[in-house]
Every structure is written in structure tokens, then in C-alpha cells.
């Protein structure tokens, strides 16, 4: 019970962190892009690093958005055959799809991590002397969170299928 409650707390904190991150990132993006326009048009100047930072923020917001889409299982999909299946068979195929998604995302996360570690060793810099690997770190983080979400879906649905229950 206490372990369960701890996991619950952890899950809730994680959700809050995910939501806060995506909201702050979008907010900062709007603010920085607007500031840059005002500086350019009113004061005829601009922050030299802002355009590059904005492009990196797009990558971050994209992956944070993809993590959010994973939590709601709202990714773009075709799903022609899936909806034709009887409910029981659909439960089984969903199980396969969740595991497949988690595996592919985990592989992507693993090699993204390799890229980031390589960049760290190489010591590349961006935006006036910031280590470049920090900006790339969202790639392994994002794909890991996506893999985690689908792994959770897999275990949840496997439990449902095994027990025939609808509540986990």
C-alpha cells in the first residue's frame, strides 16, 4: 500500500513536471520571439543568440509535446484494421502495439543518448560557449519518456487482459 502510494505520488509529480515543462517552454518561446521582433523593429537591434535559441526551443517543445501526446495516447495513426476487430482481439493487438512502440522509442532513446554522450566528449559548443550536448539532451529524455508511457500502457493492458478487470 505504501509502495503503491509512493508510486502514485511519483507519477503525479512526473505529470506535473511534464506539463510545467511544456507550458514554460511554449511561454518562453512566445516571449523571446516577440521580444526579438520588438528589438528589431523598434530599437533596430536584436539578440544574436535568440534565433538559434528559438530553433532549439522548437525541438524541445516538439519532444515535450510528443511526450504529452504519448501520455494521452493521442499520436497520429492510421488504424483501419484495428477498429474492425472484436474487443477481445483488439486488446491483444493493442498489447503488441504498445510493446512495439515502447521498444522503438527505447532504441531511439538509446542511440540519442550515445549521440549526446559523444557530443559531450567532443566538447562542441552552441550559443556563445554553452556545451551543445545540453541542448541535445531533450532527444534521449523525450524518447525515454515516450518509451516509459507505452511500457506503462503495456503492463496496464496486460493486467486487464489477464484478470479480465477493467480497473487497474
Amino acid at each position, binding site marked *: 500500500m505504501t509502495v503503491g502510494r509512493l508510486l502514485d505520488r511519483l507519477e503525479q509529480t512526473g505529470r506535473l513536471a511534464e*506539463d510545467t515543462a511544456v507550458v514554460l517552454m511554449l511561454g518562453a518561446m512566445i516571449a523571446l520571439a*516577440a521580444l526579438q521582433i520588438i528589438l528589431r523593429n523598434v530599437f533596430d537591434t536584436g539578440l544574436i543568440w535568440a534565433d538559434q535559441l528559438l530553433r532549439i526551443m522548437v525541438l524541445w517543445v*516538439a519532444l515535450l*509535446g*510528443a511526450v504529452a501526446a504519448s501520455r494521452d495516447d493521442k*499520436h497520429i495513426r*492510421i488504424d483501419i484494421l484495428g477498429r474492425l476487430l472484436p474487443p477481445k482481439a483488439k486488446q491483444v493487438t493493442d498489447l503488441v*502495439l504498445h510493446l512495439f512502440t515502447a521498444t522503438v522509442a527505447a532504441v*531511439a532513446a538509446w542511440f540519442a543518448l550515445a549521440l549526446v554522450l559523444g557530443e559531450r566528449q567532443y566538447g562542441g559548443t552552441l550559443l556563445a560557449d554553452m556545451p551543445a550536448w545540453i541542448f541535445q539532451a531533450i532527444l534521449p529524455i523525450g524518447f525515454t519518456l515516450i518509451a516509459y508511457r507505452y511500457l506503462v500502457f503495456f503492463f496496464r493492458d496486460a493486467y486487464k487482459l489477464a484478470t479480465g478487470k477493467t480497473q487497474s
Partner: protein
Amino acid sequence: MILIGLALILLALFGAPLFVIVSASALIGFYHADIPLMAFANEFYRIADMPILLAIPLFTFAGYLLSESEAPGRLVRLTRALFGWVPGGLAIIALMACAMFTAFTGASGVTIIALGALLYPALAEAGYDEKFNLGLITSAGSLGLLFAPSLPLILYGVVAEISIDQLFIAGVLPGMLMLVLLGGWSVWSNRSIRVPLGSFSWSEAGAALWESIWEIPLPFVVLGGIYSGYFAVSEAAAVTALYVLIVEVLIRREVSLQRLPSVMRESMVLVGGIMVILGASLASTNVMIDAQIPQKLVGFVEQYVSSPLTFQLLLLLFLLVLGAILDIFSALVLVVPLILPVAAQYGMHPMHLGIVFLATMQLGYLTPPIGLNLFISSYRFEKPITQVYLSTIPFFLILLISVLIITFLPALSLVFLGE
């Protein structure tokens, strides 16, 4: 290799997220070509090398925020006050309001939810047939696709690496054509129904204008700014996002500060869903180019198709099928890199190809089995999907005629480009 391909297609058809299918095929492709799999992450990271992509989250957020506010109601009232006196007025109002709203919100289905709920009962009240209303709203839900600053237009510019400002110009006449044909049909098919003509009232027009005073500058700033070259597209997006945020949250307070974070998150769910497919497709396109698949495709098509006319007919057929099974965003990032070189071989201008591509994919919103608008309408108006589908058939045919005209009359897309 073929077996793996078939397995991936099967997984996609059973409903695996598309970005997973694309990622898997890219990873497998790199593995087969003995390229370190880190290349996948490297290609994905190229999202951070495309300045124009900034426009996508910003416009999407602005669109979501607008649809959460009471701006849709004001837009309907304003178009009604200004054009309600035209015969068939309300149907035309519905078409215009939907087109304008879709251009700003990016054809993600929010038009039907935000505007349909207002227009559908209004049309019924004015005496239009239920079947007509259902078909009209369902098909109008993706009508503004060819008008700036719609998301699919921007995405096509990104993938095809052509000027988005020019694409915005190329879309104007083809978009108008669809509006005019649908409007004309709406008037003609309702000629027997005596819908009482609204009369033009200066006081109502004035009141509606006053009510929308904060939103009216928006299209002028965005479109005027982009078309005059004063703003880059991503700058216009930033201005729009900030302006809508200030107006709807701080001035009008129609979206509360407490509600704002969830609107932001929801809009980024869509953005994340599109961008993760785009990132994965950068890698998969790279694999295909390494394997010289575009060249092989050009060679293959050339073998069987000799005239540009046959090519364009086959292209249309292909795009119609594609639109029926793939959503517009995935189709853009996955298929455009493949058909661009083929189309160029037959002398098709990339701008023209883009407009044809989007116009045809727009029909996909109305075709089963995955037509997004059908599902949203069915859900929103609580009608069986087959009834929604049947109601859209005349509109589908008119849009198909527009697509044929747009395809075989390239001048419609290219005339203002000075080519």
C-alpha cells in the same frame, strides 16, 4: 527486407503510432546500410536547423486559444451582419467563416467543433435542410487549407524547401475557386427553399464590428504583414500568438489564467504529434535518398507514363487514395520528398504540386475510412457516420471538380508568382 516492410505496414494499419513506424523503418534502413544508428538522432536534431518551424507551434497555439475564446461566435455574427442580405447568405457565411477560421487554426478539426456548433443550429433555424447543413459544415471544416497561414501550407514549404510567402500567394485563387463553387452550389440547391432574406442593418453591422474590434486587426496584421514582406512567416506567427494571448486572456478574459496552461498543453499535443513524425521522416527520407529510391521511382514512372497529362491523372488518383488512408500532415512529410522529383520530371512546378497536393488531401478529410471531419461531425452532432458521409457526397463532388480544375489549370496557382 520486404518482410520487415510488410510487417511495418501491417502494424500501421492496426493502429501503431505513425512516428513509430517511420522511426522503425529509418532505424532498420540505417542498420542495413551499415550506418551507425546515432544517425537517426542526428537527423531528428535537424528540426533545430529549420527556422521556419517556429511558426508551427506559435500558430497552432494561437488557433487553439482563439477557438477556446468566444471569437468564433463573434466571427459568425460579424459575417452575418455584413453578408446576411445575400441570397443563400447563411450558407455562404458558413463557408466563409469556416474557411477563415481553418486558415488560422490549421485544419485540425477544431473548425467543426468551434464554428459548427454555432452555424448548424442557425442554418436549421433559417429553414435549410438538415442533410444539407450536415454536409456543408462537415466539408467546410477543412476549407481554408489553401489560405495563409494554414499549417499544411507551411509544412509543405518546409518539406519541399520552397518559399512559404510565395506558397501563400499560390493558394489564394485555388482556395477562392473552392469557395465560389461551393457557394454557388449552396445557393442553387436551395433555390426552392424560400429563406427569408436578411436585410442589411447599419446598426447591427456597426455593433458586430464593435464587438469584434480586437480580432479585426488580426488578419490584416498577419496577412498584410506576410504579403507585404514586412514580417517573415515565423515573425507573423509570434505576433499572432502574443496578440491573441493578450486579447483573449488579459483584455477579454474569456480564457482564464487557470485554463491557459491546459490550452497550451493541448495545442502542443498536436504540435508534438506532427513534429515527431517530421523528425522521424527526416531520417527515413535520408535512408531513401541514400538508397536512391527517388531516382528509381522517377525511372520506374517514366517507363510507364509518357505524357504529363497521364502523369497528372495518375497523381490525382494516387493522392485521392493517399488522402483516404493518411492524414494530411503525415502524407506531407512522408510522400512529398518522393513525388517532388517525379513531378519535376513531367514539368510540374513545385508550387503547383503543393497546391494540388493539399487540395486533393483536403478531400481525404471527407472520405472513409479515416476522414477526420466525418468523425468529428458524427461525434459533435450525434449523427451516425454513414449519414454524415452520405450528406457530404455532393460537396465532395464539387470539391473534386475544383481539384481537377486546379490540377489542369496550373495558371490558377502560378499566375501571381511572375513565373
